[in-house]
Structure formats: structure tokens, C-alpha cells
């Protein structure tokens, strides 16, 4: 092992850079990981703030606060901020921190590009959000940007599109870095089938990213030329078709939702074995299931488009292929369950979040399966049933997994243990309120409330009030997350190298806490 001392501070080649330059000019995977995570947290708070405004307006019928156009901008940018600013950068941040530690590498493979892919993001979001201050307001066509509606926007139109181009460039660079690091920088003996599952899921996610972000770039480029240069991609008079955009968008968009969940699967696959004190059940099957999900994700996209008037054969195909995804996902759920079976379980905060993930993601998956039934989706499509579905997979799914990962690895990063009590309060309040927030939205959708409306008829009032109250409670609970992190980073008690009095496994736990500035100066031996 490179380091045995627990108070590692610097490596012997170099000094840890100081001042603002450490962050602006960073090439160290840990510094960049930290920046990604802090940025993601800020965006989560910002996107959450927008969500709070949405829930405020929806608290009761009638327009109380916002013009409908502004409401649409809130919804659109809430989604873009959460997806591209919150969840995706959080995953890249975790990858930056953990991939080199888990595979025994000195750093990411392409350190300068690593910093580039991070620093593009704040500028991209500046571009996106600045549109709120232009004539016509922020982007209001929904995060799906369907033409012809999205073409009606004002100055927000080019700003949104260029912001998406930048986010795409950032994602692609980040993904290339992860792939190359995993494929090229593994310590000797770390064969692919010994790779920790977090690395495996990220490897496959990175592949998805490189495959679909350019397609999104192409789609929005066509929007741009349709708007400014008279092309007819989405204009039927010229032989185009607005629905063509939807196909291209969802060819990106469906793999994108797995981009938002596969690393979460990886995190959960790390945490459950640790706190079950038992190896993961069915490691190989987990890897193959992840790969199958990724493969299937390319052939199901039009399940978002059952109502656009596709030919019958198309609807059949997309219905069946979508249903198939339940199989590999089920394999994962069953493997996690069996990992706990005959284990020795303890319930520290990371495990609590992973368990909530297991239950609540599955609920979101089940509603996804209902959505896959094309004839029934005619009733669900564009209602709050869909909103409930995707928030279940995204919030107590992806976001909870990120929180689980932060609670799991934070002591390794900072060398300090956060307050368990604070984290458990955060957990219980979040888990209860997130259900109050999103479960009633199933009812709203089934009872007929469309999504993306600022005002509704009075029979929807009760459940909206419940949902909003849950929303505010969930929002306030997140302040505890921030508090737990801040308290942990500055005031926490020192953590040991193994951190968890549990079945930790993997290279990251062989390093001292905090992990030294340069992780593995010499490649560790894997047996």
C-alpha cells in the first residue's frame, strides 16, 4: 500500500495547491469531484426551490402567484436544472472521487479534460438561467422541447439550445474520462469481472452518455436551424414532421433516464453488501442485467409517444420491448434482496437510504410498467400519474441513492464522521414526506389531472394540497442534509480508515481517511 499513515496531507512530489487556483486550475480528481458535488448540491437546491414555487402555485385552484407562461418556465427549468445540473453532475462527482479509489489508480486518466468538463457546467447554466431575464422569459416549452411550441420562444430559445450543447459537451467529456480511466487505469489483477459494481454501472452509463448526448445535440441543432435558417425538419409544409423531433429526442431521452439510474444501482450495490456483511449476491448477473438494461434502453423510446398516432405495429413493438426492461431490473431487485437474506444487517444512514431506494424505486418501476401498457397509457399519458412515476424513480430513486453514496463515502473523503442523529432525522423526514409529496400524484393523474398546468378544476384540490404540504416538508428536510454535510465536514469526529464497523470491501477502504491527495502512487496488488 502506498500510504499507511492516517494523517496523509500531501504526497511527496508536490504540494497541494492553495487558494482559488486550486479550484480554477484543478487537475486532481478529488478536487474536481468535490466541485462537481458542490455544484450538484447547489443546483438541487435551486431546482428544488423552483419545485417549491410550483407546489405553491398548485396548492389550491385558481392562479395565485404566477402568470401561466412563467409557470411553464418554472417547470421547464426545474427539470433541466435537476437532471443536467443536479443528478448527472452528482454522479460524475461521485465517479471522480470513487473510480480512481476503487480501481487503484493515481487519478483520472485525462485530468485536464476532467476540469474542463466540470467548468463548462456553471457557464452552461448561467446561459440557461440568464434567459429568465430576457424578453419573453425563460424556456417554457417543457424540458422535452417539442416543436412547434419550442420554436415560439423568444431569446430563451438560442440560450437554451446552446446551454444544452454545452451540457452535452461536458457530459461527453466526463463520460470519456470515466471509460478511459476504468478501462486503462485499473491496478494489476483488477480484472473486469472484479470491478466494483459502482464502476461497472458507471462504465455502462458512460457508454450510454457518449451514444446519446450527441443525438440530443443533433436534435436541438435541427430546432435551431428550423427556427433561424428556414430548414423544414419539423415543418410538414416542407416535408418534415414535428413528431420526428420526438423520436430523436426520446432516442436520447429514454437512455437518459437510465443514465440517471444506473450509477444509482451501482451505489446501492456497494452499500447493501456492506451493511449486510455479506458479498453481493449474483455479481455476474448484476453486470449482465446492467448491460441488458442499457441495450434495451435503445429500443423502447417511443413508449413516450403512444398518443402521437404511431402505426399499430410500432405501438406493439414499443409496448413489448418496454415491458421487457422489468426483467433485468427485477434481477437486480432480487439480487439485492437475496444479498440481505441470511445477512447480518445494521441500519446506518447509507443503508437506510439504500433500503428506501429499494422500496420506492420499485414502486416507481411498477408504475412504469403500467405506463408501458399502451392502451392504458392513453389514459395516463401527460397526467400526474406520469409525474408520480418519474419522481418516484428520480427522487427516492436517483437522489436518495446519491444521498446514500454521500453518507457512505463522506467520511472517507473528509476523514470525519458526520452526526448519525442528524442523518437519521434527515432520512426519516425525507422518506415520509417524499411519499406524502408524490404518492397522491398517482391519484391526481388517474382522476384526470393533466401535467404542466398551473391551475386545475376544483375536484383535484385535496390531493394537491396534500402533495404540496409533503413537498414543503420534503424541501425543509433537505436543509438537514446540508446541515449534516456542513457539520460533518468541519466538526465531525475523526473517522477510521475502514470507516464502517461492517463488511466493507474494496480498495477505497484500504486508504486512510481522508484519502491522500494522490490516491495510489503505486498500484496496489489485487488478489
Amino acid at each position, binding site marked *: 500500500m502506498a500510504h499507511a499513515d492516517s494523517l496523509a496531507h500531501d504526497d511527496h512530489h508536490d504540494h497541494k495547491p492553495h487558494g482559488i487556483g486550486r479550484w480554477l486550475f484543478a487537475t486532481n480528481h478529488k478536487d474536481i469531484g468535490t466541485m462537481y458535488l458542490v455544484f450538484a448540491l447547489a443546483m438541487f437546491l435551486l431546482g428544488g426551490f423552483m419545485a417549491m414555487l410550483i407546489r405553491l402555485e398548485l396548492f389550491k*385552484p*385558481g*392562479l*395565485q402567484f404566477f402568470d*401561466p407562461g412563467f409557470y*411553464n418556465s418554472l417547470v421547464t427549468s426545474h427539470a433541466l436544472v435537476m437532471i443536467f445540473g443536479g443528478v448527472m453532475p452528482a454522479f460524475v462527482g461521485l465517479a471522480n472521487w470513487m473510480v480512481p479509489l476503487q480501481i487503484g489508480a493515481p487519478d483520472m486518466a485525462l485530468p485536464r479534460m476532467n476540469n474542463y468538463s466540470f467548468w463548462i457546467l456553471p457557464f452552461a447554466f448561467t446561459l440557461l438561467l440568464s434567459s429568465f431575464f430576457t424578453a419573453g422569459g425563460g424556456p*417554457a*416549452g417543457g424540458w422535452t422541447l*417539442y416543436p*412547434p*411550441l419550442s420554436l*415560439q420562444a423568444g431569446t430563451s430559445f438560442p440560450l437554451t439550445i446552446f446551454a444544452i450543447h454545452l451540457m452535452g459537451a461536458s457530459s461527453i467529456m466526463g463520460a470519456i474520462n470515466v471509460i478511459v480511466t476504468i478501462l486503462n487505469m485499473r491496478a494489476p489483477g483488477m480484472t473486469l469481472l472484479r470491478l466494483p459494481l459502482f464502476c461497472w454501472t458507471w462504465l455502462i452509463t458512460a457508454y450510454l452518455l457518449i451514444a446519446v448526448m450527441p443525438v440530443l445535440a443533433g436534435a436541438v441543432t435541427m430546432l435551431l436551424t428550423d427556427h433561424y435558417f428556414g430548414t423544414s425538419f419539423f*415543418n*410538414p409544409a416542407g416535408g418534415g414532421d414535428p413528431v420526428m423531433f420526438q423520436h430523436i429526442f426520446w432516442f436520447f431521452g429514454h437512455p437518459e433516464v437510465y443514465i440517471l439510474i444506473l450509477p444509482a444501482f451501482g451505489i446501492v450495490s456497494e452499500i447493501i453488501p456492506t451493511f449486510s*456483511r*455479506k*458479498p453481493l449476491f*449474483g*455479481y*455476474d448477473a448484476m453486470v449482465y442485467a446492467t448491460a441488458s438494461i442499457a441495450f434495451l434502453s435503445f429500443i423502447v423510446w417511443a413508449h413516450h409517444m403512444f*398518443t402521437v*398516432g404511431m402505426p399499430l405495429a410500432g*405501438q*406493439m413493438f414499443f409496448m413489448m420491448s418496454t415491458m*421487457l426492461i422489468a*426483467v433485468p431490473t427485477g434481477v437486480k*431487485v*432480487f439480487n439485492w*434482496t*437475496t444479498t*440481505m*437474506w*441470511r*445477512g*447480518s*444487517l*445494521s441500519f446506518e444512514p447509507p443503508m437506510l437510504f439504500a*433500503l428506501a431506494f429499494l*422500496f420506492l424505486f420499485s414502486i416507481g418501476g411498477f408504475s412504469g410498467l*403500467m405506463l408501458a*401498457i*399502451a*392502451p*392504458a397509457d392513453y*389514459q395516463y*399519458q*401527460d397526467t400526474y400519474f406520469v409525474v408520480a412515476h418519474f419522481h418516484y424513480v428520480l427522487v427516492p430513486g436517483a437522489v436518495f441513492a446519491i444521498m446514500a453514496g454521500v453518507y457512505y463515502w463522506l467520511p472517507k473523503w473528509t476523514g470525519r464522521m458526520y452526526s448519525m442523529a442528524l442523518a437519521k432525522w434527515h432520512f426519516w423526514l425525507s422518506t415520509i414526506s417524499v411519499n406524502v409529496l408524490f404518492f397522491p400524484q*398517482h*391519484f391526481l393523474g*388517474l*382522476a*384526470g389531472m*393533466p401535467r*404542466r*398546468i*398551473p*391551475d*386545475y*378544476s*376544483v375536484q383535484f384540490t385535496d390531493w394537491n394540497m396534500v402533495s404540496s404540504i409533503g413537498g414543503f416538508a420534503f424541501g425543509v428536510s433537505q436543509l438537514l442534509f446540508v446541515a449534516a454535510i456542513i457539520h460533518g465536514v468541519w466538526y465531525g469526529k475523526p473517522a477510521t480508515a475502514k470507516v464502517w464497523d461492517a463488511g466493507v470491501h474494496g480498495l477505497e477502504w484500504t486508504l486512510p481517511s481522508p484519502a491522500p491527495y494522490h490516491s495510489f502512487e503505486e498500484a496496489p496488488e489485487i488478489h
Partner: protein
Amino acid sequence: MFYRKVATVLAGLAAATPALAYESTYNLPVGATDISARVFSLHMMMFWVCVAIAAVVFGVIIYSLWKFRKSTGAVADQTLTHSTNVEVIWTVIPVIILVATAIPAARTLIAMEDTRNSELTVKVVGYQWKWKYEYQGKGVSFFSTLAAESNYARQLGSGVDPTTVKDYLLDVDHPLVVPVDTKVRLLLTGNDVIHSWWVPDFAVKKDAIPGYINEAWFKANRTGRFTGQCAELCGRDHGFMPIVVNVVSKADFATWLDAQVAASKAGASAADPSAPAATAAAPTASL
């Protein structure tokens, strides 16, 4: 049919559960067409399938959480790392369940797509933000917009309490009027952006796309007033373009249609056709 039986039984179960009875504020409507009833049973079938799987999976998880607590001295069985047999079983069983559910779904889908033998055709055009209905071959067409009372109340800071407004946001000036027990075919298109015509009680939701014609159909099996909303984000007032369909008896429909035709001949302003349903005010008929 075995699958249909399963579906019916499950749907029956659902209807028997008082908490999930239809016309509720938390479930889909059974609706007013055969198709909507079939969709409802599909929905309930899928729902119960998911509940059953969830009961098993969550049951096992909760049992493990309880049984294998470290605090009660549980010791981990390090040898339980894989088993090809169970892995095959839990891959195959879901496949079987999915195939079993896909079959009734496919049947319903095929029935829904069959637009042949329609008796009345209405072209539906989505505008920002209203609907236009054109009765094909009848010389009757009119716009349908949010009712004035709702429209007043929904303005930002109107000061009107929505609960005092009749059918707040679900009322229009000129509803679509169709006869009962008649296969009505809709030809949908959009004038500016994409809209989506949705009436839950008919289980019809189809996008109205500029430049293209989409088809949908329904055959209402009872008279009444059915409401719906635009279901595709179409800009600022997307939330304010509801749909109201009055399903009337065939005789009433004939009377109504004659009045519309007469009115359109006489000129929109002169006419005051008596509407068959109380809510159906005089459409400004034109060709």
C-alpha cells in the same frame, strides 16, 4: 378467453373494493364506452399484478430486515453468493407474467386502432387555445372555448373563488354534441402547435399534430356530459382549453344537427337553435 377472464376477475375484485370504486377522485373512470371499460380492467389488472409482486418482494425484504438484524446476533452466511437455479427462476417467472399481461393489452390495442365502419366523422382542430369541431359532410362547424365564467375567474388575481364557479375550467361555450350508441370517428390535427384531445370517459387521447391527420374513435354507450382537457403542453394557456362532449339520444342529435344546419344557412347571428342538453349553448355555426 382465459386472459380476459383473469382480467375481468381482477377488475371485478377492484370494483368490489370500495376504496377503489369508480367515479372516484383517485382512480381511472370505467367510462362510457366498451373500450374505456376494457382499458379500466387492463389498468386494474396491471395494478393488481404489481401489488402482488410487490407484496412478495417487499414481504421478503421486510422479513429479512427483521430476521437478520445484527442487533439480534444474526451472523452473515458468507457462502450465499450465487445460485444459478434461483437466478433462472426469477428471470423466467417475470417473463411469463409479462407475456400473460401483454396479450390482453395487445387485444385491446388492436380494437382501439380499428376505425372502420364509423357512422359520424368529426374533424377536430387544436388551436392555441381552443378546439374547432367540423362535422364532416354535414356543413356544421364551430369553435369551442373555455366558458366565460371560468375564463374570468382564472385570471391572475381575479379574486374569484374557483369553488363558486360552475365546472371551473371544465366548461366550454360550445360543446361537441354526438349521438349515443354511434361510432364516432375523430380526425385530429393541429393548427399551430401540438395539442392532444383527451376525454377520460372514452379512453381517447390522441395528439393533434399540425400537418398530419390522426384518427381516433369512440362509441358512447350512455348519454351524458363528459369532460376532458388538452393533454399536450401547447403554450401559455394549455391548462385552459377543456373539452366537453354532450352525448345525446339519436333523435335529439338529429334535431340539434338540423338546427345547426339551419342556423348556418341563416347566418350565425340570427339563429338560436335549441340545444338538446342544457349546457350546449348556441354554436356559431359556419361552414
